[in-house]
Structure formats: C-alpha cells, structure tokens
C-alpha cells in the first residue's frame, strides 16, 4: 500500500462555508462517496472561514491566519497529518497559507501573534498535508479499486471535466503538482477525468477545463461572468458532453446560475447538465440521486440522472 493510500484512509475534513450553503450537494455527496468506499472523514472541530475572498482582499495576512487556525486544530488538537478540503477556494487558501508560512517571516509573525491572542498553538509549516477531494479519492482508492466497486456504470455518459482556476493557480503554491508520472498537471489536470473514466464515463476532449469563469466577479460584473460561462458551456456541448463535472462549489454555482442567466438575459438556451464529480461517482457506486444531493442542485438534473444513469 502506498504512503498516500495509507495516509488518506482517515483524514481531517474541512468542508468550508460554501459546502454548508449553496454547495451542500457537494458536502452530501463527498461524505456519501467516502462512506461507500470505507474512507473516514473527521470534520475539523470548530472550524472557521478560510479567509476566502473577503478577508484576503483586505488583509492577506489575516487570511493566512484564518487558514492556519483550521490547520492548527487539525494538526495540534485532532492529531491529523492530512486535511482534505473539497472546495477549491478553501484548498487554495490552505495551500497559500502553507506557502506563506514557509516562505514569509512576516506571515509567521502575524500568525504567531494572533494564535497566541486566540489561545491556541500556532500552526507550523510542514505539519500537515492539505489535499483536495480529488487527491483523496485518487490516492486512497484509485481507479482500479473504484472500477471494481462500480455497481452502476456511467457508460455512455459523456462528461466535460471543468476544474476551474483555483485548483491549479498560482502554480507556486502547489509544489506537488507537475512532478511527472501520475502527479497532477496544472496545465491539463486529469484526476477528475481519471476517476470518472474508472466509473465508466466517457471524457470528451475539453480544452477549457481550467479557463476563467469570471467567478470572483459574478456580482460586480455579471455580464462578463455570463459570457465566460456560456462559452465554457457551449464548448462542452460542442465537444459532445451531456454533463459538465465540477469539483468546486463556486465553479458549480457559477455554471448553474449563469446557464440560467444566459437564457434569461441573452436568450441562449443550453442543455448540458452540471453535476459534482462526487455526485457522478456516488451514482456509479449505486447511491440514489437523493443520497448524493441531486435534488439540491440549482438546476434540475433529476430527470436526466434517472433517465441516463440510474434506470438503465
């Protein structure tokens, strides 16, 4: 058994705020898939916001502290070596905090001071490994075992895998990527493709898998976001996809909502369905659509899922 496979069987789970709100289906399906595969998730106790957009925009060192507090609880209080964050924003911010704490003395000083005031041990760089849900399932289970566990193959389901930006950018905070071999690629990520293919899906050639969706500007400049998202959706459809698979609650909400907005504001109707990769994996493992939260998505994919996946 590889080191990763062993280490990822039981990990600290940091859902982050989006997975308690608009991305609840991702939370539900991630937990359900983990349970079905015999993996253990222990939610970080009393976790806080990672600093996401709002805090980072005002004071990046406070964001570093907020992310470091989550890592400190997971490491120092819960004694975990690995924390898994399914949200790209949380994953990105924890990785960024790790990088800053390793490379920036000023960040270490702020984190040390705020941790002391808050009454907990300061997180020290290198103490914890932050991984994404894709790393978790890819390493803890792998394609071969996943393929053996599939009860309801996704055969015939054509998928465009959309990774968004924060899973791979900026590259310097992801030193484990681009290491050749089976490591993840920042220019052409493939972990989601690998997992869904193992579940029977057909991955279409999709060149916009990390293209900007304008997510951070979805409210301040909605038309730009809608144009970017619509282009991503239309490219996926032109590539032959029935489904766009996502691995980030912000990307997912953006795709779903701008798909609707493109129809209402620009009069452009598209038919591709937007589903979390964990929802697709859960369905392949024999879980019901409700068990993986298909009913919680903004757009209605239930009829498609029943017709194309669960009732074959």
């Amino acid at each position, binding site marked *: 058994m590889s080191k990763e496979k062993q280490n990822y069987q039981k990990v600290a789970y940091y859902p982050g705020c989006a997975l308690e709100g608009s991305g609840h289906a991702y939370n539900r399906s991630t937990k359900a898939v983990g349970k079905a595969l015999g993996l253990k998730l222990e939610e970080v106790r009393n976790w806080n916001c990672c600093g996401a957009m709002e805090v980072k925009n005002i004071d990046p060192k406070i964001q570093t502290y907020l992310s470091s507090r989550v890592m400190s609880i997971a490491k120092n209080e819960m004694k975990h070596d690995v924390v898994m964050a399914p949200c790209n924003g949380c994953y990105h911010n924890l990785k960024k905090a790790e990088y800053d704490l390793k490379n920036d003395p000023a960040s270490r000083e702020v984190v040390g001071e705020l941790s002391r005031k808050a009454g907990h041990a300061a997180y020290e760089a290198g103490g914890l490994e932050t991984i994404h849900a894709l790393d978790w399932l890819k390493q803890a289970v792998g394609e071969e075992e996943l393929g053996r566990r599939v009860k309801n193959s996704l055969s015939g389901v054509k998928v465009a895998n959309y990774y968004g930006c924060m899973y791979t950018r900026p590259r310097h905070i992801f030193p484990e990527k681009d290491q050749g071999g089976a490591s993840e690629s920042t220019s052409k990520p493939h972990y989601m493709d690998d997992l869904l293919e193992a579940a029977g899906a057909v991955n279409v050639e999709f060149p916009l898998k990390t*293209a900007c969706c304008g997510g951070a500007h979805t409210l301040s*400049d909605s038309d730009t976001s809608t144009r970017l998202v619509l282009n991503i959706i239309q490219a996926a459809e032109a590539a032959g996809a029935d489904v766009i698979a996502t691995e980030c609650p912000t990307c997912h909400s953006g795709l779903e909502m701008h798909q609707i907005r493109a129809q209402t504001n620009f009069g452009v109707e598209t038919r591709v369905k937007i589903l979390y990769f964990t929802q697709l994996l859960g369905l392949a493992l024999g879980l019901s659509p409700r068990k993986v939260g298909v009913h919680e998505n903004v757009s209605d994919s239930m009829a498609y899922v029943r017709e194309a996946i669960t009732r074959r």
Partner: protein
Amino acid sequence: MTLEAIQAELETATLGADRLLRLGERILEQWLIAHGKTPTEERREGFRLLALHRQGARDDASFNACRETCRELVYHYNLLTSSPEEADAQLLQMMRFIARHLYFFVSGKLQEAGLGDFCCASRPLRRAEA
C-alpha cells in the same frame, strides 16, 4: 483592429487555424496597447502569441488567468496544421471557442481590471490599502 472587429470576426464559423491564431495575437495586442506597452514581435516556444502573453503577465500575475487558454490555442493550432489530413471541423470549432474565451477574458479584464486577481494571482485587490 478593434476588439469589436475581433469579436465580429470570431463569430464567423469559417475561420481557419491560422486566422484564429492571428486573432489571438490581436486580442493580446489590445491588452498591451491599453497598458501603454508596445506589443512584442518576439516569439516564445515558436509563437508570438505566447511571447505576447508573457509580456502581458509581466508585473501582473493575474493575466496568467489566460495562460492556459493561450497555450490551448497554440496546441490546437499545432494539431490542425501539423497533420492537416487529420484536422476536422470539431477541432477547428474547439479552437474557435478557445479564441472566443481569450476575447471574453481580455475584453472583460479591460473593463474590470481585477478579473483574475483574487483567484489566479492570489493577490488581494486592496493590497495598497492593507
């Protein structure tokens, strides 16, 4: 060539790989000119498009939000031109979507400079005030 003219041409379905690559260069030129820079005539990895992107991203890491889009454009150009007998309409259509994405990103960023700052550059929008 204005951005409006580029957009109008991108909506034409009959563009070839050569023209789509040139339009990609025109889009990046617009970005550089708007920022008071003279677009480079140099090439990087054999492509002026990649040299223009690198020039645009210098001192502005958020412009890396379109790095992979530029590289995909070049990749598709190579696929379409290195084996013309294998080039198909689907591949060309994908290249057009990639060029359109570059257009939407750059034209959006010209209106809203912060596009890509928070996420791809991991840079706070209000660093100067922090």
